[in-house]
């Protein structure tokens, strides 16, 4: 296969899958799951092939329909895009594999729309990752947003309302992006990223350009759930179906962060965004505020999904903090954390789906020792992901925090250091509370819910673990945390180091 075609295949496979599902569903009921998993699997393989190609051969460029940039749309697979696309596709694959029984139980009869929109979402997110044109990015951004609104609306009674709120805020965000892009276009006359890089390096900064950048940042920040534009996230994640949350939480917000990284460090000269106007610094401090806000509020939650949602706000803050440092260490920390968090949060949301499936609830107050007795493997997966979130070695989460701390110390930013340390301890509080409950709390102690004692429903009085299709993805993600942690040096040296833009 001619290497450049690889690039267009990545989103195309998912889009084809998304279109095929309604058609095939008409022909043969119940095949939506299979088609979705198949598309995701093929797509994941293609992204891995892309990563291999790029690592050995260098950046791949593809001109859509043969039209040359800057008029035509160019798709670019450079080390950063390849790496993130692999992460995106693999997490999506595992979540989709997991989703079979979830969808049957939580959303009966809605399998077709769910899988179709899910594939659209993943395809669009991949499109954002590989596009080399800012307006094309907007198109993919809107596709992914619309897909996510629809996905999030498929849930319980409160889901449509929170999805609608996200829709309004998301559209505002996308409009800001478009507006900002308009200013940039007005100033430079081009929309192609590589072209813009050349133009901007020769251009003096001017008010329209700066306004455009601020608008773009605000718009993307909203999508990223950067503090204080995160208000839509907790509700949306809590009330949506488990699969929707598990798809959007690990990857949706990360891709928005990717957009910021692409614009600030690759399109603009890295010094521009921190020197001319302190945009990256502002993002860094907003990220720090988000970290504290998310971690503190997570402690107060009683619903597992809501707790994880607030935790996500905090984790996005880490990535924003990495961007804010605008140094190689910060960059490594941000990228590593994107991957680590995607895997960690993916695992955690799958675990909450498992709990919901077997126990019927995800209420933290009702977890006790019987949870672990019934579902030991899920509990083990949860523990591994929790330890990684807190940032304890040898799990992956430790290493991204290490790079961020190193980066902050390098920049003598003691506020960032303190925030990272305090938030690690705060996340230890809300995760260990759960670990303690699951492993150590005897059922009889909760007088409000005495019926949890012993788990009368279990026929053999013991294991009641979820099915293999649900358990395997959970455990794969959990063990991936250990693997990513142990291999983190190889990942940083071989995969991330080549990505660092010159001049950072």
């Amino acid at each position, binding site marked *: 296969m001619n290497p450049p075609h690889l690039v267009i295949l990545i989103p195309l496979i998912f889009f084809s899958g998304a279109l095929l599902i309604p058609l095939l569903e008409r022909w043969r009921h119940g095949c939506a799951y299979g088609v979705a998993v198949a598309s995701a699997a093929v797509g994941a393989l293609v992204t891995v092939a892309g990563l291999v190609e790029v690592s050995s051969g260098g950046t791949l460029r593809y001109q859509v329909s043969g039209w040359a940039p800057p008029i035509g749309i160019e798709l670019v697979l450079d080390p950063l895009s390849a790496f993130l696309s692999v992460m995106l596709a693999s997490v999506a694959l595992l979540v989709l594999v997991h989703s079979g029984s979830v969808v049957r139980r939580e959303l009966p009869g809605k399998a077709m729309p769910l899988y179709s929109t899910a594939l659209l979402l993943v395809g669009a997110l991949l499109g954002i990752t590989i596009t080399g044109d800012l307006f094309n990015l907007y198109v993919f951004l809107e596709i992914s947003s619309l897909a996510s609104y629809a996905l999030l609306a498929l849930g319980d009674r409160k889901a449509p309302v929170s999805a609608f709120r996200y829709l309004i805020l998301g559209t505002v965000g996308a409009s800001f992006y478009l507006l900002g892009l308009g200013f940039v276009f007005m100033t430079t006359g081009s929309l192609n990223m590589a072209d813009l890089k050349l133009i901007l390096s020769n251009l003096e900064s001017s008010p329209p350009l700066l306004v455009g950048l601020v608008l773009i940042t605000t718009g993307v920040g909203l999508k990223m759930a950067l503090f204080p534009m995160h208000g839509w996230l907790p509700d949306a994640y809590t009330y949506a179906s488990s699969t929707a949350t598990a798809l959007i939480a690990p990857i949706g917000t990360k891709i928005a962060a990717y957009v910021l990284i692409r614009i600030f460090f690759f399109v603009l000269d890295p010094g521009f965004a921190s020197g001319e106007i302190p945009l990256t610094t502002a993002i860094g401090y907003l990220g720090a505020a988000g970290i504290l806000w998310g971690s503190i509020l997570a402690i107060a939650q009683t619903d597992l999904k809501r707790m994880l949602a607030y935790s996500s706000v905090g984790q996005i803050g880490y990535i924003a903090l990495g961007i804010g440092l605008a140094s190689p260490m910060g960059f490594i920390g941000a990228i590593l954390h994107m991957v680590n968090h995607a895997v960690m949060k993916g695992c955690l949301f799958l675990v909450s789906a498992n709990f919901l499936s077997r126990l019927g609830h995800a209420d933290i107050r009702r977890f006790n020792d019987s949870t672990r007795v019934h579902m030991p493997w899920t509990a083990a997966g949860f523990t591994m992901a929790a330890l990684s979130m807190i940032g304890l070695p040898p799990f992956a989460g430790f290493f991204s*925090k*290490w790079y961020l701390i190193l980066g902050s110390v390098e920049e003598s930013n003691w506020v960032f250091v303190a925030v990272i*340390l305090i938030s690690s301890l705060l996340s230890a509080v809300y995760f260990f509370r759960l670990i303690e409950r699951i492993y150590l709390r005897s059922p009889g102690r909760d007088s409000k819910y005495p019926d949890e004692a012993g788990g009368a429903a279990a026929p053999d009085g013991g294991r009641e673990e979820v099915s293999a299709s649900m358990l395997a993805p959970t455990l794969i993600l959990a063990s991936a945390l250990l693997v990513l942690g142990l291999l983190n*040096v190889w990942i940083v040296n071989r995969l991330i180091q080549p990505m660092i833009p010159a001049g950072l």
Partner: protein
Amino acid sequence: MSDVFQSNIPLWAVSISLLATLGILVSGRKPNLREFWTLLAGLIKFGLVLSLLPSVRAGKIAECVLLQVSPGIGLSLRADEFGVFFALVASGLWIFTSIYSIGYMRSNQELKQTRYFASFAVALSATLGVAFAGNLLTFVIFYEMLTLATYPLVIHKETGEALRAGRQYLAYSLTAGVLLLAGTAWIYNTAGTIEFQPGGILGGVEAAPNAIRCLFFVFVAGVGVKAGIMPLHSWLPNAMVAPTPVSALLHAVAVVKSGVFGVVRVVGFVFGPEVMAEHGLNLILAVLAGATVLFSSLIALQQDSLKRRLAYSTIGHLSYTVMGAALLTPEGLTGGIYHISTHAVMKITLFFCAGAIYVHTHKQNVSELDGIGRAMPWTIGAFTLGSLGLVGIPPINGFFSKWFLCLGSLQAGWPMVLALFILSGLLNAAYLLPVVYRGFFRKSEEFAKFDEAPPLMVVPLCTTAALALVLGLFPNLFFDFFELASGISEMILAS
């Protein structure tokens, strides 16, 4: 400079018990097989560490670079003299503790034994990782793993008290861990390296005095929690709620000794004697250590629970080593480092005795021990030996470390510290010897029907007590502990 050679032995020494953990987890249903893995791993581990002793005595250091992140930052294991010293103590005493644990767990019919033995194995792996850490980052990683691995052991009984103790332990240790991480990053930024070097890495570095002092406080807080430096010590007495073998090995040997090991590494291999003296840091450390020695001994007098009394005694003796590090004189440092091994052997004996008493008679308090010596002469006999050693009575090995510490304080020109050590010896006698007195010289009908505790427990404790005596008579028997200690001290002060 010493010869560094590449070897995988440090890696094997660290990982062997991780492999054993897998064996333990799958043999949960077959206790004898499960215990076999623990003992096998213990023997192999000790053997591997022992094999490093000849090379280390010849000045050769085994190194195993695990991962290289970037120049100057990597994860590496390096078996230098100090590392081998600590590893010998920890892995050697693990063998005794394992035998003792088997006796304890089975006599008491404890639940969750698989979790217990598995956590122990991981904890020992982490301890050896701490011992062999070649730089600060490796040290911090294994230090955090140690906290995690010992948590299930602290909360073993799963009572409310145990959970509270566990939470406190985590809160203290995790906070210390993040401080250490921040300190490591700061050191890297200041000195450009995080490798341990005898004589310190902050030697010729340009840095503001306030920054150095702040950095020192961060590190002392970081290692001070496990090292029981007051006021960071309160997790230790509360952790006594754990089963006695846990208290014996981890909270008298592995965990707390990792803390003081960390203190000496920080003082000798990161900051270095010159920087310490230049900024008055050793004075600060001496004040903290001195206060800890004094107050812990006083508080120990008031404890009726035998284990809590021993816990406060441990806190005091840990600060003997910290004081040795603060003195920074040849004798003082030698004494402090040597005290790591002498105190370990003595304290573990005392804890083993306390556990044997508890399992056999269910008595936990000193006031209830009248006449127990008649029933359990071997146990109380061993307790006597250990106590005399802690007080500093020759020829038990505790005398020698104390002797050197006293010499060191005179060398440093700090006679007050000498007075403190003498006073501490008297206080030790005051809170330990009454147990012996009550046991042997008071009568009570209570223990008439008891005889000695089960052999699986009595044999280890008598062996460690005998070891304390034998190592006192021949300090360099088998393991060259004293030679190692003075060698390390020389290494630090010479540079």
